[in-house]
């Protein structure tokens, strides 16, 4: 037996040594620049992630058609993290050590991104954020730049709570999943609500994989709130809207929604249909908002998306993911290097021109000038994709600069409004 053991250990060690790759490669002038990330392509965030991915791929193709970056081709490496934060540390370690990626992009959304923040900080790598919320607040990495059009909780809840106040609401119910994004947002909203005189009558967390919201909706209804702020992810959003429709939320509710991720994904909007009516929720882009050049982007995007059988409208994420590419491109061309540190220094002090407007960052790597909107779903019909292409289905109610209409209250009336 000892013989056996020696052999096993010996072979094992030899195999490990044989499989090893030398520590550094010599770059040829024509060697490609590798940009890598993991994207949730399946799982709860999958519908959004697949659309976002097309946005990035469009940029990769565009930049390679122009001759690449610094004369070198851009090679894009992407994995599927299945919307599961447990998978991302392994994937990003693989990207850095096995694939030898030069520039990292974060996965779409907060929850898959949170686990890799310490890793990225320790390795001193630049990370291009992708629609996460306050994910850098604890780790404070100085090479983090988030493309999302928000900064902190104020941009989300202020508009929502203001609209509620205008309708005379004084009591607030808050519920959120126990996960990074939802908690960050809900805590922010609670802070603001408390400081502006709201009476919080219901305040609960639920596990992220909860599928049956009957008891929560029932409890919310029993607390008789006049405003209901929800921070949730796509699977939960669908279940919550179905539950609200099944059980009812109470006739005194003026305004419902706030921070529901997933109600911006076209497949979900299509499947929920009229269940969406009346909900006031955040968005990054809806038809009617002015961004120069974006119509052209959507045309090109649609073609690729339809061919890939993915969200054909692509409003929420794809343009912003394309913008990530644009920012990388502009930074690399300006600094003439892919050295992460130099790129980060440049990004800290530059305002970039992108298809979603100008983007500049504050000292935390979040947007210096947020441009988030709150919209209200109105007159949405079931099983109709085309209806979302024109303005009027998602009416912008806040902020004033993008406003398209006033909030219709109470919630029950808004659900039937035309």
């Amino acid at each position: 037996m000892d013989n056996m053991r020696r052999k096993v250990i010996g072979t094992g060690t030899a195999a490990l040594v044989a499989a090893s790759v030398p520590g550094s490669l010599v770059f040829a002038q024509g060697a490609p620049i590798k940009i890598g990330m993991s994207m949730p392509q399946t799982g709860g965030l999958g519908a959004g992630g697949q659309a976002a991915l097309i946005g990035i791929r469009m940029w990769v193709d565009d930049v390679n058609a122009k001759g690449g970056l610094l004369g070198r081709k851009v090679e894009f490496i992407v994995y599927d993290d299945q919307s599961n934060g447990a998978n991302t540390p392994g994937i990003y370690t693989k990207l850095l050590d096995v694939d030898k990626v030069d520039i990292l992009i974060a996965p779409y959304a907060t929850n898959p991104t949170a686990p890799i923040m310490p890793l990225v900080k320790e390795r001193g790598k630049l990370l291009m954020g992708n629609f996460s919320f306050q994910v850098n607040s604890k780790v404070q990495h100085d090479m983090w730049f988030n493309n999302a059009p928000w900064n902190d909780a104020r941009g989300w809840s202020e508009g929502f709570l203001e609209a509620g106040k205008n309708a005379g609401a004084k009591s607030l119910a808050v519920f959120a999943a126990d996960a990074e994004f939802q908690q960050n947002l809900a805590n922010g909203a609670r802070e603001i609500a408390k400081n502006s005189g709201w009476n919080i009558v219901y305040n609960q967390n639920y596990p992220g994989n909860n599928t049956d919201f009957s008891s929560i909706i029932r409890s919310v209804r029993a607390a008789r709130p006049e405003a209901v702020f929800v921070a949730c992810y796509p699977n939960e959003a669908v279940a919550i809207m179905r539950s609200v429709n099944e059980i009812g939320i109470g006739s005194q509710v003026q305004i419902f929604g706030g921070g529901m991720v997933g109600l911006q994904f076209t497949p979900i909007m299509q499947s929920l249909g009229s269940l969406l009516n009346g909900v006031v929720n955040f968005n990054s882009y809806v038809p009617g908002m002015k961004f120069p050049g974006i119509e052209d982007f959507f045309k090109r995007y649609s073609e690729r998306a339809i061919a890939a059988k993915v969200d054909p409208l692509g409003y929420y994420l794809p343009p912003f993911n394309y913008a990530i590419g644009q920012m990388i491109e502009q930074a690399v061309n300006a600094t003439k290097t892919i050295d992460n540190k130099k790129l980060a220094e440049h990004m800290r002090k530059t305002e970039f021109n992108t298809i979603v407007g100008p983007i500049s960052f504050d000292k935390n790597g979040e947007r210096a000038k947020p441009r988030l909107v709150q919209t209200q779903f109105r007159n949405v019909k079931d099983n109709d994709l085309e209806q979302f292409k024109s303005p009027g289905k998602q009416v912008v109610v806040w902020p004033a600069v993008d406003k398209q209409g006033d909030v219709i209250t109470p919630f029950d009336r808004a659900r039937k409004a035309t």
Partner: protein
Amino acid sequence: MISIDLLFEAVLFGILLGCFYAAVSLGLSVAFGLLDVPYVAHPALLILGSYFTFLLSKTGLDPIICGLLLMPVFYLIGIALYRFYYETFERRSSDTGVRGLAFFFGIAFIIEVCLILVFGVDQRTVSATYIGSSLEIGEYRFPYRMLVAFGIAIFLTTLLTLYFSKTFNGRAIKAVGQDEGALRLMGANPVKIKQLAFGIATAVNALAGAMLIIVGPVEPAMDRIYIGRTFCVVVLAGLGSMSGTLVAGLILGIAESVVMMTLGASWAPAVSFGLLLLMLGIRPQGLFGR
């Protein structure tokens, strides 16, 4: 703090939920309770039933019909599984405990991973006219999907109880768990009887799987939480008791519903496993067991 109204509604919802849990555990009650097979793969087959229902319902059929249509298929699967288990384990060596358990555990994981590979980790749902609306009685709302599941559960439980008490084969199944030798003397082949029982248990799983996807969305990893719920019901009932399964299911359903209402949904997963552990600690033979 918690109003009586709300509590009452929680209990009512718990009754619906409990009957659903009972129906989902019936198969295990037979396979493990009566036959003593360490059938930890039962919840995985339940989820498999849900996914097959999902596939079949794409043809436009109502999910309940799909479930019924799948029952003969699952019956055959059950027979095959038991036959294999019997030939490989029960017949041969003394080490059956570890190996039998490991075998079914392995099967459960294989089913789960294959589901992930084929369907992905996304949640799947079915649609039907009764899914999405509720019955309004006064201030209370009862979702129709729960009422449908409740109805099927009662139907299945009654059917099985009658089968086991009134028919020769049914009584033979109950007997084979207690005294195989005596059964042989009565002219029945114990192996064939056990096979039949296992087939029935797995067939029930098909309809239970249809119920599961009617009640809510399913994803491949759900078999893990259902290990807790189904084994909790079976252990609480006591091995070998069919009607006990219904009572045990009700206890679990009401407990879970009330906990969700009072402590919050984040404590719900612990209810079934906690009850299970409690039962194992103080009264392992269950409430109605022999």
